[in-house]
């Protein structure tokens, strides 16, 4: 019995040892397989950042982003320049109209009657206010525009003071209307001329800025 047990233990021991050896060998095989597979993968499927195509793509992508930004800023600059050019053209149009008004103010007829003076003043009032209203908050022109409005209001008041009272058939007093309004029209002409100078200055400055851009 003891011999059988001893033999059994011997064989069990030999079996265990063999199992361990085989386990170790299997483990080694698995490890080798892993290494082989890994090398194969690396060879057949390299990391994406190691590929040539990746770097080409990256460079192209960066260039595209850069080009997009540049295009955006260029478009913004172009829009600004177009807006400035539009403002300059508008300013030039206003300058031409105001020059025409100044010429009319300077050749006021000495024998102008009340109706003609009233119509003339209404026309000047309307045109000047329309032309200058976009700039009335502009600090460069605010003072002149306020003064122009005051002169127009005073001229209207003064003209009202020579509105004829007498009935038709009576002769009006010669040149009364002219003398009532002459000083205001003269002052208005001067103020508008001053404003024209400022507009022309801005037009020149815009032109220089656009040329340098």
């Amino acid at each position: 019995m003891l011999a059988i047990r001893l033999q059994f233990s011997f064989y069990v021991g030999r079996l265990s040892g063999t199992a361990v050896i085989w386990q170790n060998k299997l483990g080694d095989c698995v490890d080798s397989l892993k290494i082989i597979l890994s090398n194969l993968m690396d060879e057949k499927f390299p990391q994406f950042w190691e590929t040539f195509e990746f770097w080409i793509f990256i460079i192209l992508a960066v260039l595209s982003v850069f080009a997009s930004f540049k295009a955006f800023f260029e478009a913004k600059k172009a829009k600004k320049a177009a807006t400035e050019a539009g403002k300059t053209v508008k300013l030039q149009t206003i300058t031409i109209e105001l020059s025409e008004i100044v010429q009319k103010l300077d050749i006021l007829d000495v024998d102008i009657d009340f109706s003609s003076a009233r119509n003339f003043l209404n026309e000047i009032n309307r045109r000047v206010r329309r032309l200058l209203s976009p700039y009335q908050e502009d600090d460069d022109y605010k003072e002149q525009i306020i003064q122009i409005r005051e002169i127009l209001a005073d001229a209207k008041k003064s003209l009202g003071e020579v509105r004829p009272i007498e009935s038709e058939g009576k002769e009006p007093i010669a040149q009364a209307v002219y003398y009532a309004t002459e000083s205001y029209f003269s002052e208005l002409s001067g103020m508008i001329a001053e404003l024209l100078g400022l507009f022309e200055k801005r037009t020149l400055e815009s032109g220089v800025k656009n040329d340098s851009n």
Partner: protein
Amino acid sequence: MIAIKEYIENINTLLDLTNNRKVDWKKNNPTTFYFESRKGGDLVHISLQKIRSRRIKQGGYRFQITSISSGEIIVNISTEEVSLEELDILMDKLYRKVARSFEQKGLDYFDVIINNLR
């Protein structure tokens, strides 16, 4: 203006005549008064106009004699052009006198209306 002293003298006389109600002033517009006279066969207007001016804060006056038949302006004196204090004061007195007389005429009318209502 060379003969300004003589003009001032005549305007002074006109003021006296106005004070004595010897002049029939008419109102052409709220700031212009005139009266008619004759020089030979020629009808003339003698007018006095108060002028607002931005050049002179208190304004000024314009005294004018106009021939109606020819339209010629025979006399044209402006206190803005002739900067003489004596002339300013005289024109101011004359204007106020004439304006006041028109206001008084209006007031008299108004008083009659009010009295009739009572």
